[in-house]
């Protein structure tokens, strides 16, 4: 019924006015209803009485057949403004005398039984005229049944009374309401003051001892309570703030320390990288520069054999052959070193690799170079993503190792297989060759680390280091299992997700 923001003053006015209006409306309606009923009853009674009088007066006229005198009596009804017409019927039902207040009034052709009938805005009433022993005739009176006009008038009066009453009620309620609303408004303004200024020390003034007085007391009590709590809370908050500040200070110090540390790490890394690069360029240039004298040594030793072989004895020729072989070995060593150091500089170019085909072709190429007959068992290998050239080197190194170390067996067997796991592909190369002592397994993948003497198995000691470097650059792992004289198994993995390709 009321908006949420309607003031209490207005709400009270609404209540008072609505109550008054409803009460008046109901009273008015009841009165109107009662009056309408009474009005009809009164009208009927009045008309009946008039009909009785008329009948009595008209008795002799009927008895002595004197319509004129009956007419005279009827004409008396002119004094009644609500009578439209009247008539007297003889005992045989014929119209004896009639009176019409206005021209054009009609009368029923035949008299009806005693009673009244309301038809439109008119009421017609029949009344028998009878002496104690005979019926003389019937009186008929037709009158205006002005109930609608009366009702309209009533509604008008009720409306006027309502307007007057409501105005009066509004004025009276205005006066009395202030007694109720003023203390409430005082509390409201006090509350607003508290909310706006946060001045919990202020108090509402108590002017009455009724419920509103109780409200004022409760309000003031609450203010006291809030005041106390606010103080406690404020001191707590201040304390917490202090603690937070201290924490923040510590945090800041920690962060500064962290930053410093990170800076230091970055600087160190840069230094390290620079040193590494220097080292690589150094080893590259050294290797490169070493090749020229080696080539010269090899060239001149072969020239020595060709040009002066006949002049030399067998011992000299053997020694020159040793010099040439060692120079060749030195050359290949330098090549490997160059390849290894180049690996650090080259970027990985990943592509889809058919590892099975790669292993197969690599093995076939190695067999052509070497003429060994090996039982080569190639399982199905999952495809992987990686640098084709680098993985070719991986297979070359692993397979050549396997061939090399199983070459002294009567029936060498090399097994290659692979399996796809959740995040990576795992490949292995197994041989039944010389194997290695498990306690040296960690040294297998270092540069120039050799577990066998060069007289047993030739090699530069760079191959597995290269494999290790390539696989780790692809984000994979390398490891080996083996036992002395019982063969070795080399595993490496390639992740399914392509790594960023950096060491």
């Amino acid at each position: 019924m009321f908006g949420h923001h309607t003031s209490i003053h207005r709400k009270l006015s609404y209540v008072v006015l609505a109550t008054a209006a409803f009460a008046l409306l109901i009273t008015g309606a009841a009165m109107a209803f009662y009056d309408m009923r009474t009005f009809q009853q009164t009208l009927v009674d009045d008309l009946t009485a008039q009909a009785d009088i008329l009948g009595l007066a008209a008795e002799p006229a009927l008895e002595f057949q004197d319509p004129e005198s009956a007419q005279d009596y009827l004409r008396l009804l002119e004094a009644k403004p609500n009578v439209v017409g009247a008539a007297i019927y003889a005992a045989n039902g014929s119209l004896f005398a009639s009176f019409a207040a206005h021209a054009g009034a009609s009368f029923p052709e035949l008299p009806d039984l005693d009673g009244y009938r309301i038809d439109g805005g008119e009421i017609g009433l029949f009344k028998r005229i009878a002496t104690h022993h005979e019926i003389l005739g019937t009186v008929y009176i037709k009158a205006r049944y002005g109930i609608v006009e009366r009702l309209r008038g009533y509604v008008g009066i009720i409306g006027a009374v309502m307007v007057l009453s409501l105005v009066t009620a509004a004025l009276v309620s205005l006066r009395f309401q202030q007694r109720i609303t003023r203390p409430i408004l005082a509390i409201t303004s006090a509350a607003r003051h508290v909310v706006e200024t946060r001045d919990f020390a202020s108090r509402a003034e108590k002017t009455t001892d009724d419920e509103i007085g109780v409200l004022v007391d409760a309000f003031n009590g609450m203010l006291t309570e809030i005041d106390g709590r606010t103080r406690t809370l404020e001191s707590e908050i201040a304390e917490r703030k202090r603690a937070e500040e201290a924490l923040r200070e510590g945090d800041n110090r920690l962060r500064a320390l962290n930053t410093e540390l990170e800076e230091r790490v970055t600087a160190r890394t840069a230094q390290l990288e620079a040193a590494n690069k220097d080292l690589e360029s150094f080893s590259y240039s050294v290797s490169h520069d070493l090749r020229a004298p080696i080539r010269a040594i090899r060239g001149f030793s072969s020239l020595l054999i060709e040009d002066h072989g006949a002049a030399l004895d067998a011992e000299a020729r053997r020694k020159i052959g040793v010099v040439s072989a060692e120079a060749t070995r030195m050359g290949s060593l330098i090549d490997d070193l160059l390849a290894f150091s180049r690996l650090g500089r080259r970027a990985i170019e990943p592509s889809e690799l058919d590892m099975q085909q790669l292993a197969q072709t690599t093995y076939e190429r190695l067999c052509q170079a070497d003429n060994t007959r090996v039982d080569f068992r190639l399982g199905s290998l999952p495809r992987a993503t990686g640098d084709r050239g680098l993985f070719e080197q991986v297979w070359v190194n692993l397979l050549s190792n396997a061939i090399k170390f199983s070459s002294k067996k009567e029936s060498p067997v090399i097994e290659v297989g692979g399996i796809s796991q959740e995040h990576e592909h795992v490949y292995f190369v197994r041989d039944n060759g010389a194997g290695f002592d498990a306690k040296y397994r960690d040294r297998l993948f270092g540069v120039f680390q050799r577990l066998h003497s060069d007289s047993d198995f030739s090699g530069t000691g760079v191959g597995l280091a290269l494999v290790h470097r390539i696989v780790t650059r692809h984000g994979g792992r390398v490891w080996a299992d083996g036992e002395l004289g019982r063969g070795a198994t080399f595993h490496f993995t390639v992740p399914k997700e392509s790594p960023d390709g950096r060491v």
Partner: protein
Amino acid sequence: MNPAPPDRPQRSLVRRAVWLVMLAAVACATTGGAQTNAARASERSVKAAYLYKFAEYVDWPDVSLLPAGQPFTIGVLGAAALADDLARMTEDRTLDDRVITVRRVTPSETFDDLDVLFIADGERGNLRALLSPVKGRPILTVTESEGALADGSIINFTVSGERVRFEVSLDAAQASRLKLSSRLLAVAASVLQSQ
């Protein structure tokens, strides 16, 4: 409408009108006699009814002194048919708990027991002689002769057109100590009063 020859309709209208007039005349002539008989009978019965009804509007003196069971007596002089009608009408009627009796009387009687005396038009010549002994006695005298009020009658029937009316002499009524209701006087054709 088809245009008719100009002469013929008018001639036929005239002829029809003549026929109608003749027919009406014959009808009047034939019904006139019958109506006279019927009217005479009706006039008689109306008068009979009035005779009896007059009593309701008239107060007789000393009614309370009458012995119990005394009938209300209406005397009829010289109108046998009317007396019969009246007797038939009042057969089982009473007036103030008094039985109504109708009696034909002769001029030689004293009319002592009568309450109402009706003198037919046949006695027109003797009216004065007949009424004078009744004068001053509480007997309602009713006549049907022109000028009868002058002869001392209290109520006299007149006939205007087909309506039976009556005239009243208040003087005569007063002389007889009869009180005539004003309601009766209201319907009278005329009321004779000397003062």
